[in-house]
C-alpha cells in the first residue's frame, strides 16, 4: 500500500491520517490514511457502499470522524465544520446537487460568502466576480437565471463555480459524471485539467473504472471502508483495479441463447406533456425474449415513459398496447396483466419504508390474491413472502423487519422478487410478459448489480420482454439486445446493440438524431 508518484511528502496539500467512522453497526471508514499533492488529480475508486462519500464528507466537515486527523496546507483542520473547510480552501461538488431551484445562480453561488450580519449585499461586485471566475475557467452560466430552468450539466457548472468563487484550492467531486452525457463528461475532464494547471488539487470520486483511468494521476481504491491500494494511474490495469475494488473475481452475467418472440408491448406516437421530461412522438416495440436498453441522461423523458408503461400515467396522445390489447392507466391492470415493474427510486416509490418485509412483498397484490372479503390473508401472505425472501436472497432481517432497515441491495432484491414472481398467481412457474426496469442497479454494489443483471437475462431467456432504462452506458452495452437513445423526449430507432458504437450513442444522447438514424 505505498503511495507512488507525486503523492506524499512534506508538499502534501491534504493529509488524512487514520480516519475511522462508524454508523451504528456499519463501519464506513476504517483507519484510512491518504495524502493529496498540489496540482494532482486523485481518484477515489470503489464500488457503491465502499465508503468514498463518507470519507470526503468527513473531510468537508459534514460528519465528524470517530478517530483520525486531517491536515490541510500544513495546519490541522477543525473537524465537523464546513465553514472551516471552506475557509482553508476546500470546496465540494456533491453528488446530489445542493442548489435552491427557486433562486438564481448568483444567489446560490454567493450564499455564505459575505458576513452574515452585513447590512447590505454587494450585488454588483459579486456579479462581476462571478462572471470573471466563470470566464477564467470556461464555465459559462447566466448569473440571473433561475436554477430550476437549468439543465443538469449547467447545474453542475454552478456547483463547481460555487467552489471556485470561494477560491478553492482543493476541489472534491462526488460521482460527477453520473448525470452527464459522454460529451459533457469530456468537457468536464478538460475543465479539470485546466484547474490543475492553475494549481488546484482535485479529489475525484467514481465507481467507473474507465474514466478514473482516463482522468486521474493517482488512484486510491477503497473496499468495505478500507484503503486497499494506491496506484499510479499511468501503470494501473483495469482488471487489476476491478479485482481490488471487489476483492474477488466477479462472474460476468451469462446470456443464454434464446428465441425472440412476438411483440409483447408496443407504444406508438406517444406524447406526454409535462413541464420537464416530456415525451414527443415516441414509438417503440418490445418483443418477447429480448432486452431493449434505453440509454440517455436522466431527465430526458425516461420517467414519463416508465410511468406510462407501469400504468401510472395516461399518455396525452398515442397508443399503448400490451399483448395486442389497449391498456389504460391503472397500475393494477398492468400488474394483473403480468407486467413486472422496477421503479427508479426504490425508497421513494418501490417500497414503503414503514411497512414490514412481508407487507411490502404483497404490496402489488394485496387485494388479489392476498385478501378475501376485505380481510388480508396474513398466513398466505407471509408464506409467499418467506418463499420470496429465500429465493431472492433478501437479507438483513426477518419478515417483520421494516423495509427502511434493509440495505439498498436487499430492498432491490425484494422489489425484484415481488415483480418476478407475480404472487404465484399462476403457480410457481411465472414469467412476466414485460419487465420495466428503471435504473435497476443505481447505487448497488458490484455483487448486487451482477445479481440483478443475471435475473433480467434469465427472465428474458424464459420469454419476458425487458425494457431497461439506464443512464449507465456500460450496463446497457453489457446486456441489451437492442438499444435506443432518449433525448429531449424523443427516442431514436432501437437498433441492435452491435450496430452502435459508444461515440454514436454519446452523440445521440446530445440530440444528434439525424446522425443516429443515418449512421
Amino acid at each position: 500500500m505505498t503511495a507512488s508518484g507525486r503523492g506524499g511528502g512534506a508538499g502534501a496539500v491534504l493529509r488524512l491520517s487514520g480516519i475511522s467512522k462508524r454508523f451504528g453497526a456499519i463501519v464506513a471508514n476504517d483507519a484510512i490514511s491518504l495524502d493529496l499533492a498540489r496540482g494532482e488529480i486523485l481518484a477515489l475508486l470503489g464500488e457503491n457502499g465502499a465508503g468514498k462519500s463518507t470519507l470526503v464528507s468527513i473531510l468537508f466537515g459534514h460528519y465528524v470522524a470517530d478517530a483520525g486527523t486531517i491536515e490541510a496546507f500544513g495546519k490541522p483542520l477543525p473537524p465537523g465544520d464546513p465553514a472551516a473547510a471552506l475557509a482553508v480552501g476546500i470546496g465540494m461538488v456533491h453528488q446530489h446537487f445542493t442548489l435552491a431551484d427557486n433562486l438564481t445562480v448568483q444567489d446560490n453561488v454567493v450564499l455564505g460568502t459575505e458576513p452574515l450580519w452585513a447590512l447590505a449585499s454587494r450585488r454588483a461586485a459579486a456579479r462581476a466576480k462571478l462572471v470573471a471566475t466563470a470566464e477564467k475557467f470556461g464555465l459559462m452560466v447566466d448569473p440571473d437565471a433561475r436554477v430550476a430552468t437549468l439543465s443538469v450539466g449547467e447545474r453542475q457548472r454552478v456547483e463547481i463555480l460555487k467552489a471556485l468563487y470561494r477560491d478553492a484550492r482543493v476541489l472534491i467531486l462526488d460521482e460527477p459524471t453520473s448525470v452527464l452525457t459522454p460529451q459533457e463528461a469530456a468537457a468536464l475532464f478538460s475543465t479539470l485539467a485546466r484547474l490543475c494547471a492553475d494549481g488546484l488539487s482535485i479529489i475525484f470520486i467514481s465507481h467507473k473504472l474507465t474514466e478514473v483511468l482516463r482522468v486521474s494521476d493517482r488512484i486510491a481504491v477503497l473496499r468495505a471502508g478500507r484503503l486497499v491500494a494506491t496506484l499510479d494511474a499511468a501503470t494501473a490495469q483495469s482488471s487489476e483495479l476491478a479485482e481490488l475494488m471487489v476483492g474477488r473475481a466477479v462472474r460476468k452475467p451469462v446470456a443464454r441463447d434464446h428465441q425472440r418472440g412476438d411483440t409483447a408491448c408496443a407504444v406508438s406516437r406517444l406524447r406526454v406533456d409535462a413541464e420537464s421530461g416530456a415525451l414527443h412522438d415516441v414509438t417503440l416495440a418490445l418483443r418477447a425474449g429480448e432486452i431493449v436498453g434505453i440509454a440517455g441522461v436522466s431527465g430526458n423523458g425516461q420517467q414519463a415513459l416508465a410511468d406510462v408503461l407501469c400504468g401510472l400515467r395516461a399518455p396525452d396522445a398515442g397508443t399503448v398496447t400490451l399483448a395486442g390489447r389497449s391498456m389504460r392507466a391503472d397500475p393494477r391492470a398492468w400488474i394483473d396483466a403480468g407486467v413486472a415493474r422496477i421503479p427508479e427510486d426504490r425508497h421513494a416509490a418501490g417500497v414503503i419504508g414503514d411497512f414490514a418485509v412481508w407487507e411490502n412483498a404483497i404490496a402489488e397484490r394485496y387485494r388479489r390474491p392476498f385478501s378475501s372479503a376485505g380481510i388480508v390473508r396474513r398466513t398466505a401472505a407471509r408464506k409467499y413472502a418467506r418463499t420470496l425472501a429465500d429465493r431472492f436472497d433478501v437479507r438483513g432481517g426477518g419478515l417483520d423487519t421494516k423495509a427502511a432497515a434493509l440495505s439498498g441491495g436487499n430492498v432491490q432484491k425484494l422489489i425484484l422478487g415481488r415483480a418476478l414472481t407475480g404472487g404465484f398467481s399462476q403457480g410457481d412457474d411465472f414469467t412476466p410478459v414485460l419487465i420495466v426496469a428503471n435504473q435497476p442497479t443505481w447505487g448497488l454494489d458490484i455483487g448486487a448489480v451482477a445479481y440483478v443483471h443475471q435475473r433480467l437475462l434469465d427472465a428474458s431467456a424464459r420469454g419476458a420482454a425487458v425494457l431497461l432504462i439506464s443512464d449507465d452506458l456500460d450496463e446497457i452495452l453489457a446486456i441489451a439486445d437492442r438499444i435506443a437513445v432518449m433525448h429531449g423526449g424523443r427516442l431514436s430507432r432501437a437498433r441492435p446493440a452491435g450496430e452502435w458504437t459508444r461515440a454514436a450513442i454519446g452523440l445521440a444522447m446530445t440530440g444528434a438524431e439525424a446522425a443516429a438514424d443515418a449512421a
Partner: protein
Amino acid sequence: MRLEARARRSRAALLLAPFAAIAFTLAVTMALVAWAGAPIRETYALLFAGAFGSRFAWSETLTRATPLIFTGLSVAVAFRARLWNIGAEGQLYAGALAAVAVGGLHGGAGFDLPAGVLFPAMLGASIAAGAVLLLVPTFLRTRFGVDEVVTTLLLNFIVLLAVSMLLDGPMKDPAGLGWPQSVALRDDLQLDKLVPRTRVHTGLVYALVAAAILAFVVRATTLGFEMRAVGANARAAAFAGVPVARTMALVATISGGLAGLAGAIEVAGRTGYVTLDMSPGYGYSGIVIAMLAGLSPLGVVAAAVFIAGVLVGADSMSRGVAVPTYIADVIVAVSLVSMLVATLFVRYRLRLR
C-alpha cells in the same frame, strides 16, 4: 448535540415513553400549582380523587371520556393517513345538529316515525354531516393542493357561527326560555344510562365498540392496509396500485363521521339538545389524545380516559383549592409535547457530538 438513528427501535423507550411524559408533566404542573400558592400535595390529591377517587368520580370521568374517545379515534384515523384533520370540533357540532334535525321535537312531536327507524337515521345523519365537513377540505387538497390544516381549522369557526345562527333561528327551542339551545331530542331516542344514578350512558359502549372495530380494520383489513400505506408513503402506495384518492376519501368519511358521531352521542346521551358550549374543545383534545395514543385505536381509549380524568379532576380540584381550572389545559398541552419528545427516543439516540 445531534440525533443519531438507532439500528433497531428501542422497546424499552417505547414502554417507558408514556411514563416519562407523565412524570415530566406532573413536574411542570407542580411548579404552576406552587405559583398559584396552593398546597401541592393537597392539590394533587384532589385532582386524583376528583378523577378516579370514587364511584362518582369514575362515572364523571367515563362520561367525559365518551365523546373524547370518538374524537380521538377520528383524529387517529386521519393522522395515520397523513390527513391533518384539525376540524373535529366543527364536525362534532355538525353531527350534533344533524342528530337534532332528524330526531328533535320539531313542532312538538318531531318526525312521525318509530324509534327503531329514527335512531339509526339520526346516527347516519350525524355521520354524514361530519363526513361532508371533512370531505370538502380533503377534496380541495387532492384536487388543488390546498393544505387541509388551515381549511379544517377555519371551518371550525364557520360551523360554530352556523350553529349559533341556527340556534337563534330555525332550530331554536321554543320551550327554552330564551337560552340559545336547540329543540330537544325525542325522549325515546335518547340513550339509556349505563350505570344508574350516574351520567354514564350507553354511548360509552358505542365508543368502545367503535375503537375495537377500528383497531380491527387498521390491522387486518385491506382498507386498513391501504390507509396505512397512503399515510406511510403515498407515492409508493400509488405505484403499487393503491387507489390513493379513493382511500383518502374513505379516510375522510370515517374520520369526519366519527367526529360527527361524537356530537350525536353527546346529544343523545348527556345533554338532550344542542348548545353553543356543549363541547369544551373536544375536537382539539382529540388531537392530543390521538398523539398520546401513538395513533393506535386501543391506545386512544386509554388516552381519552386519562385526559377525561385530568379535566374532571381539575374541575373538582378547583372547588377545593385556589387553582384555576385552566391547569387542566396546561396539563394536556405539556403531556402532548413531552410525549412527542419521549417517543422520539424510540427511534433516535442523543449524541453530544
